[in-house]
């Protein structure tokens, strides 16, 4: 396999603004993420992290500024267009199909991202059965394939959502608090899984996370946001030493 070109910029955000009425959620955000990079976005509550992810995913429309994926302008695109362009995302509260089984959830992910989604052939579904099962194996949910998602645990649901997003074969992965609400061991298991898959598939990763251990374990670069702006940016060790960051976020 030839090496992916390192150094090429995957995602560029310029002067991105987003207001909710009088509340300024994003106050001119600049961000540049390289291909294959693992970038954490951290910051106190209300810093605008989730708003940023939502604009990148298309769930929210930015008021001004620009978002570029490679050379393509993403401003004012819909979520389904973002997905088709290779942006896959998870949500802060895991978003799956609760009344379907684990298997059907993964099957849906495959079919939704397939070019033949409008097909009426049941044979198409049968043919990808093994592929779906192996995707479930990757996220260790193959034994729960028959369970209805409503009945599985919070952590399993988050893992399922991550697996479903992987199944859509994104190039840029946006994870909004991937380990929120999980136990300590479960958090590390999940982030190890994320790192393994991101490396194996050569994905670009942008994730929002509150657990500092997880951040330092997974991120190559950290962007610190505060009050809708990028407050600091750098390698984990630089951020750890950053005086201002310690004051506003790490608690001194």
């Amino acid at each position, binding site marked *: 396999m030839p090496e992916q070109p390192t150094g090429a910029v995957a995602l560029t955000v310029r002067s991105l603004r987003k207001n909710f009425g009088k509340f300024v959620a994003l106050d001119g955000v600049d961000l540049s993420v390289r291909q294959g990079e693992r970038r954490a976005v951290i910051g106190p509550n209300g810093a605008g992290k989730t708003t940023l992810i939502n604009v990148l*995913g*298309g*769930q929210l429309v930015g008021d001004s500024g620009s978002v570029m994926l490679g050379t393509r302008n993403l401003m004012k695109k*819909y*979520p*389904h267009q*973002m*997905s*088709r362009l290779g942006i*896959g*995302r998870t*949500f802060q509260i895991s*978003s*799956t*199909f*609760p*009344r*379907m*089984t684990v*298997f*059907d959830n993964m*099957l*849906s*992910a495959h*079919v*939704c*991202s*397939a070019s*033949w*989604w*409008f*097909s*009426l*052939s*049941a044979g*198409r*579904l*049968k043919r990808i*059965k093994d592929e779906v099962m192996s995707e479930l194996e990757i996220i260790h949910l193959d034994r729960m394939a*028959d369970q*209805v998602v*409503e009945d599985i645990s919070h952590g399993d649901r988050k893992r399922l*959502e991550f697996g*479903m*997003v992987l199944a*859509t074969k994104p190039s840029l992965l946006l994870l909004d608090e991937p380990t929120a609400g999980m136990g300590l061991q479960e958090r590390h298991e999940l982030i190890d899984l994320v790192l393994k898959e991101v490396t194996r598939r050569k994905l670009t990763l942008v994730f929002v996370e509150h657990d500092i251990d997880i951040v330092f374990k997974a991120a190559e670069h950290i962007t610190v946001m505060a009050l809708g702006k990028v407050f600091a940016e750098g390698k984990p060790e630089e951020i750890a030493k950053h005086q201002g960051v310690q004051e506003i976020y790490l608690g001194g």
Partner: protein
Amino acid sequence: MTEANPPSRPLDVDSTAVNWKLTGVLVALTAIALFVLDPRSVFAITEVMIFVLFASALNLVLSYSGMVSFGHGVYFGLGAYGIALTVARFDWPIWAGLMAGPVLATIAGLVYGFLSVQLTFIYAGMLTLACAEVTFGIAHQWFSFTGGESGITGYVVTRLGLSPEMFGLTVLIVVTVSLLLLWRIVHSPLGLVIRAVGENPMRAGAMGHNRKTIQLIAFTISGFFSGVAGTLYGVFHGNVFPDYVGAQFTLDGLVMVLLGGLYSFSAGIYGAVIFKLADNIVSHYFELWELVIGIILMSVIILSPAGIAGYVNRLLEHLRRRTHA
């Protein structure tokens, strides 16, 4: 008590095939019934079959696409108006009129569906109701074209001149083929995308599908099959009235689906059969048969939100587990 939000049955990719044995037995039994029973019963069975199709078409929207429709009578009634208007007003041949019914209903589904999917939840539902009111208004007021209140009668010989049992057999064939097509759609990749959008539009959106587009596809398909049912109904009685696009048919369809059980393919089948049986049999002995339907519906919603179909499925599941244990 059961949960308010019944889980849909897992879509086992290996069992998406049609149960041909069961289908064959049901079709054969119905066909035999058509030829051995008296004409009054044959008419009742024919009407039940037409409503099985209408309710199943509505069920595609309600159970799978995540939409509500408070105006589905429109697509049913426009099936009947499609043939009546083209034959009576434009002198089209009968066969072309038979095509025109479902086509008109499909176009209405596409146009009204397009308007309705711009909104979500109850607001979209209210828009379907508004569209239905407009259609009813046109059918009711445009006297020179639609015949107004007195509708259009005598545009075809009742039942196309067929004997009750032969017409019943025709309806049986059309309804069976339509249900098989609906089954195919629900259990296909497209059906899965419709279900995905219906269950969680945000997740489906983040995986490449626009809620509006997918819901519009489902709504239009539903319009087509409702139109097929309505065309059959128009030919069955040889007439069409504004009521056919009115609130009563809409309401009956909704009651049938709820009775049959949301999130189940067979909702329309169980619902229409029980509803029309109550209509035909209970009304014989008891004038207030709608009261009986009301009480049945209340009990079903409280005791088994998944409806009759959900109850039957649970029963079958229970039996299956016991035999496997």
